C-alpha cells in the first residue's frame, strides 16, 4: 500500500493554530505523525531583558490569549516571592475569581472546538453561546474580554464592586442551568460517544512516563492538580481534583466538563468568602535572586523560572507550558488511528501552540 503524506496545518480549519503535523498515512490509518513547530515562535522570553519587571506582566499575559490571566498570575507570584511581598487577601481572592473565570471560558472554548472537531456544529454553537456570558463578566469586571490585564506585581489593578458580584452569581446560575443539558449531550449522546470513547487511549503508566499534564493526566487517573498546592486563596477553598480513569478522549472531555462545574463552585466560594481590604501593596526596589513558581492552567501545570539580578530587567524568564508536556503523549497516541479521528485526538490534549512556542 502506497503511503500518502497528509499535511495537517499550519493553516487548517479544525485547528485554529499553526501546529504542523505531517501525517504519514497508509490507507486512512496514520502510521506516523511528525510534528513541525516554530510557526509561532516570537522570542518572548528574550524581551525580559528589555522590559522592566512590571512591564513584563503585560508581556507574559500575551504568551497565550486564552489563559492570559493565569500566566500573569504565575509571573507575579514569582516576582512577589523574590521581593517578599505579601499580596493582600482581597487581591488573592480576586485573582482566584478571575483565574477560575478564565478556566471556565477556556474549557468551554475547548469543548466547543472539540465538538466542532467531530462535526457537531450545533453543540459548538451552544457551548460558545454559554461562553459569551463568561466573556461578558470578564469585560465588565476587568475591562477586556480576553486579555484582562488585572494582575500587577503586588496585587490586582481593579476591584469588583459588590453589586456586580451578585450579577456574577446570577450569571453563573444561568450558565449552570444552560450547561446541564449540554453536559448530558456531550457525555451520553450516541454519536458523540462513538467518536470519543476509546479514542487516543493513554494508560495510567504511559501518561506518567510520557510526562503528560493537566486534564490529559487527570483523565488517565492521576489526581495531579497544582491548585492543591494552595497558592493565592486556593488553600482556603474547598475542592477536589477531578479525576477520570479511562484515559481516552471521552475521559478527558469529562474531566474538562466537570472542571467547568468545579470552577463555578470555586467562584461561588470565593465570592462568599471575599474579604475587604486594599487591592495591592506598594512595590519598592528591584527583585534579586531566582525562583520557580507553579500554577494550574486550564491545560495543566504552568511553570515559571525567573532569575533577577537587582536591576529592573529580569535576567531570565523561562516558561514551561502544559502543551509542551502534552505533545509527547499526543505523538504516542496518533499512530494507528483513522484520519477521521486525528482532529479528535489532537484536540483532546487541548493544544495551545502559542504557549508552547512563545
Amino acid at each position, binding site marked *: 500500500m502506497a503511503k500518502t503524506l497528509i499535511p495537517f496545518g499550519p493553516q487548517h480549519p479544525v485547528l485554529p493554530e499553526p501546529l504542523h503535523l505531517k501525517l504519514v498515512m497508509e490507507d486512512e490509518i496514520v502510521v506516523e505523525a511528525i510534528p513541525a513547530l516554530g510557526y509561532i515562535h516570537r522570542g518572548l522570553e528574550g524581551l525580559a531583558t528589555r*522590559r522592566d519587571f*512590571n*512591564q*513584563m*506582566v*503585560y*508581556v507574559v499575559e*500575551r504568551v497565550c490569549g486564552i489563559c492570559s490571566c493565569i500566566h500573569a498570575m504565575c509571573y507575579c507570584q514569582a516576582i512577589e516571592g523574590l521581593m517578599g511581598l505579601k499580596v493582600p487577601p482581597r487581591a488573592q481572592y480576586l485573582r482566584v475569581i478571575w483565574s477560575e473565570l478564565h478556566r471556565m471560558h477556556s474549557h468551554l472554548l475547548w469543548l466547543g472546538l472539540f465538538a466542532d472537531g467531530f462535526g*457537531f456544529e*450545533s*453543540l459548538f454553537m*451552544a457551548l460558545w*453561546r454559554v461562553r459569551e456570558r463568561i466573556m461578558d463578566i470578564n*469585560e*465588565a*469586571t*476587568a*475591562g*477586556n474580554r480576553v*486579555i484582562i*490585564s488585572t494582575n500587577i506585581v503586588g496585587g490586582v*489593578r*481593579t476591584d469588583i464592586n459588590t453589586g456586580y458580584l451578585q450579577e456574577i452569581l446570577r450569571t453563573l446560575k444561568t450558565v449552570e442551568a444552560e450547561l446541564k*443539558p*449540554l453536559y*448530558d*449531550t456531550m457525555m*451520553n*449522546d*450516541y454519536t458523540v460517544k462513538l467518536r470519543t470513547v476509546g479514542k487516543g487511549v493513554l494508560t495510567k503508566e504511559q501518561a506518567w512516563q510520557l510526562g503528560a499534564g493537566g486534564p490529559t493526566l487527570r483523565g488517565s487517573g492521576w489526581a495531579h492538580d497544582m491548585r492543591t498546592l494552595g497558592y493565592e486563596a486556593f488553600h482556603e477553598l474547598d475542592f477536589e481534583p477531578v479525576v477520570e480513569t479511562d484515559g481516552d478522549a471521552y475521559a478527558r472531555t469529562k474531566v474538562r466538563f466537570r472542571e467547568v462545574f468545579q470552577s463555578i463552585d470555586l467562584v461561588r466560594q470565593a465570592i462568599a468568602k471575599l474579604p475587604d481590604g486594599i487591592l495591592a501593596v506598594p512595590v519598592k526596589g528591584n527583585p534579586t535572586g531566582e525562583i520557580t513558581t507553579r500554577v494550574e492552567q486550564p491545560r495543566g501545570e504552568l511553570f515559571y523560572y525567573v532569575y533577577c539580578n537587582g536591576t529592573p530587567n529580569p535576567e531570565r524568564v523561562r516558561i514551561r507550558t502544559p502543551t509542551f508536556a502534552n505533545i509527547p503523549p499526543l505523538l504516542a497516541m496518533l499512530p494507528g488511528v483513522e484520519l477521521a479521528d486525528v482532529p479528535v485526538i489532537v484536540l483532546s490534549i487541548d493544544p495551545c501552540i502559542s504557549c508552547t512556542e512563545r
Partner: protein
Amino acid sequence: MLMGRTIIKNLLHKYATRLHPYEQRILPDKFRGRFRFIIDKCIMCRNCAVKCPTKCITIDPETGLWEREVMACVYCGVCADVCPTGCIIMTNVYRPPITEPTKLTFMCTPRPKKKKPTEEAQTMNKKDVETAIKQQQAERTAPSLPVSEE
C-alpha cells in the same frame, strides 16, 4: 438525539444574536477602549513613555513632540493609570478599523530646560528632532486639535 430539546428550544425562542452594526451595544464603563488626549494638560513627564509595556509612546520634552504608535498599542491602560495630570483618558469605545497605517502625533508646549545637556548630546538631539519634525510635517494632513481622540 439528546441535543434535540436544545435545538427545538432555540428554534422556538428568539435568536441570541446581537445585531451589531444595526444595534450598537454600550460597552461597560471599565472597558479599555480608545484613548482621549487632553494634550494641553500634558507636562511632558514621560511617565507614560517609560511605563508603556509596548514602548509605543515617544516623547521629546525639548521640542514638545508627543508621538504614539497607534498600530502597536495593546490597550492595557497603563499610560492612563500613571498619568499624573489625567491628560490620557480611556474611553469605553473601541477603536474602529483603519485602512491606512497611522501614527498619532501631537505638538505640545516644550518643557523649559533645567539642565544644560552636553555638547554632543545636544547635536544628536537636534538632528533627531529635525528629522522627526520633517517626517511629522510630511505625514500630517490635518492640524492637531487640543482635545482629540486617537
